[in-house]
């Protein structure tokens, strides 16, 4: 067996893990042990407010949401908090940093938490799963775990916005990549034996939550993202972000309708690529949860009890 000591993290799944991004959560949990990573959920975790909570809830209540999760995590273990969801990361990491650096914010949040006899006075690190993969696990280890190289799979690495902006190139964010031309996702794909294609809209915006409630405003953005992947001959789009995955996948029908295109471009999570590359079966990789089946990846995946 490998000697590398296990790395322990406190895991924050986020609401999408119970729905639209279940396949991210499932595949992440599947690859973690392969990489000697141990994840312990934040007990009784709550919603982070995502990208719209603040509008109705207000700034401080929105911060208090993350405050509660942080307090809970701190009471469990001093380990770093990891989340796979861009929005969860943005809120939790942001609030955590604000509490660390802004005394007034720290006091106000804790006053609110006080209503439940909670308090957050620690200085945990809140980290994105991708940053942990780059900085703690490392590409070499990932490459090393590949037992089923994704030969011939052409991948368009779509990073989106919030996974890298505004924290990827900051100290607190681990300086693991850049805002406009990040490399980590292509590196992940390559490490899995797939072929990253040249892909311009790498960090273009899918419209985020605006796409969720007002797709008419943003459909053209998503179209560009899919079209570029299609033109570059990619078999799949890979992304780290739940909201990107959902928007880019579920609106393709609407796009085809509005723009007369004929897109059926599978959109998977990098973690699903890894799961398959690590030799896990399609179910463990949650490939059955993609609305547009990633046929080629399915073929590459080991069949159960194979």
């Amino acid at each position, binding site marked *: 067996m490998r000697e590398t000591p296990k790395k322990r993290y406190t895991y924050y799944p986020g609401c999408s893990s119970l729905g639209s991004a279940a396949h991210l959560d499932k595949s992440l949990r599947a690859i973690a042990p392969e990489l000697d990573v141990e994840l312990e959920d934040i007990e009784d975790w709550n919603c982070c407010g995502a990208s719209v909570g603040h509008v109705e809830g207000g700034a401080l209540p929105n911060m208090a949401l993350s405050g509660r999760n942080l307090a809970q995590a701190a009471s469990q273990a001093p380990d770093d908090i990891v989340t796979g969801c861009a929005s969860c990361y943005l809120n939790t990491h942001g609030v955590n940093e604000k509490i660390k650096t802004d005394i007034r914010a720290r006091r106000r949040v804790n006053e609110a938490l006080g209503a439940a006899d909670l308090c957050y006075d620690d200085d945990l690190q809140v980290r994105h799963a991708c940053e942990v993969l780059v900085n703690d696990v490392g590409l070499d280890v990932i490459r090393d775990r590949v037992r089923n190289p994704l030969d011939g799979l052409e991948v368009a690495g779509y990073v989106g916005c919030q996974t890298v902006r505004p924290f990827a190139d900051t100290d607190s964010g681990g300086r693991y990549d*850049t*805002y*406009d*031309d990040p490399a980590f996702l292509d590196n992940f794909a390559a490490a899995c034996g797939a072929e990253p294609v040249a892909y*311009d809209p790498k960090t273009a915006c899918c419209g985020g939550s605006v796409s969720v409630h007002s797709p008419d405003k943003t459909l053209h953005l998503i179209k560009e993202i899919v079209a570029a992947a299609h033109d570059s001959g990619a078999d799949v789009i890979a992304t780290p972000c739940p909201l990107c995955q959902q928007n880019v996948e579920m609106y393709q029908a609407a796009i085809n309708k509005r723009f007369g295109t004929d897109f059926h471009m599978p959109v998977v999570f990098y973690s699903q690529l890894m799961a398959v590359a690590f030799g896990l079966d399609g179910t463990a990789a949650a490939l059955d949860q993609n609305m547009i089946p990633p046929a080629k990846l399915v073929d590459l995946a080991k069949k159960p009890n194979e």
Partner: protein
Amino acid sequence: MAAQGARSETILVVGGGIAGITTAVEAAEAGAEVVLVERGPSLGGRVAQLSRYFPKLCHPTCGLEINYQRIRGNRRLRVITMATVAAVTGDRGAYTARIETRPRHVTARCTGCGDCARASQTRVPNPYNYDLDTVPAAHLAHPMAYPMRYVIADSVIGTPEADRIEAACRYGAVDLGEEPGAFDMVVGAVVWATGWRPYDAAKLQPYGYERHANVITNVEMERLAATTGPTLGQILRPSDAKPAKRVAMIQCAGSRDHNHLPYCSRICCLASLKHAAYLREAYADAEVDIYYIDIRAHDKLESFHARIKADPRVRFIKSKPASISENEAGDPVLHGEDTLTRDLYETAYDMVVLAIGMAPTAGDAMPEAALETDEYGFIVAAETLGGGMFSAGVAAGPLDVSLSVQSATAAALKAIQAVRGG
């Protein structure tokens, strides 16, 4: 190690660009003994890489020529090339400077005949043209090199190429065995004229300097416009050598930006106005768009600004472009907001020039703790370490050529005061 306490009235000038040359020549012509140390194989520095100066559009080599003549005619001035100052200890009137030399592999016997270059079969990147082209392994730093002496690239030492080069020299001027050296020198004062380097354009990610072939920097533009440049003075865009007629200049590319250089580099506005003039001279139908935050044509240079502004084919757009993409034709496409019309533009050009700022290089040139720099790396408190240390030119702050010469001439007097104990 030179005897401690030994005194000297010699002034050491570090850096052979326009500021260093001026400090050295002005001090020597006022009667001082001067040693000028230059890191590279030739004097001239950044100005030797400029095609022309603003606002007169005259050639920097013209002033260099005069200064070279002044250097040749002055026995009190000694020039050491391929050398850096590794450390300075001591006090005003009695510093000991550690000089380290790199091998040129060509001795003083060189006549500049060029046989070695003709014999070279290996080509190496040409820093004089910001690596836009290559030169023979044995080459002259540039046509206005001083000293007029060839240099052999370290990369070919120990290869047959080196032997070819050695064999080609009829004057026994090639020394393949030359080793790096170091020696101490006692001097009375030191003037740091270590200059600047263009800010790394690759760091301006939204502009895709590394992704888009036709996005270049202002210093590269100088080489494209220069008759001694890679295109012999024709302004052609890199991707397909097509004449660059629709060109955008992006001001404050790195400068005035807390993510990059917080200060204003002062020269970039005027350099871009000059580049507009180059283009309008080169192509009757050229069109230039200058994207700016504030056009900083200080003092009398405002008339140059006014002159260029009067040209209907040069447009000024108050906007810091947000990003650059590339279309099928390989044209860079600028995206941003015109802050005066409040329109969002998406404009394609043949070529985009990033008006890159000046980053001080004192940091890499300076021995530890010898001098104090400000938060940006410009040398301040120039009289630290015994009161005989001074700075000149861009080492002291972002200056244009005339201001650098002023600062250098002043530094020359301060240094003279220091060595004469005035």
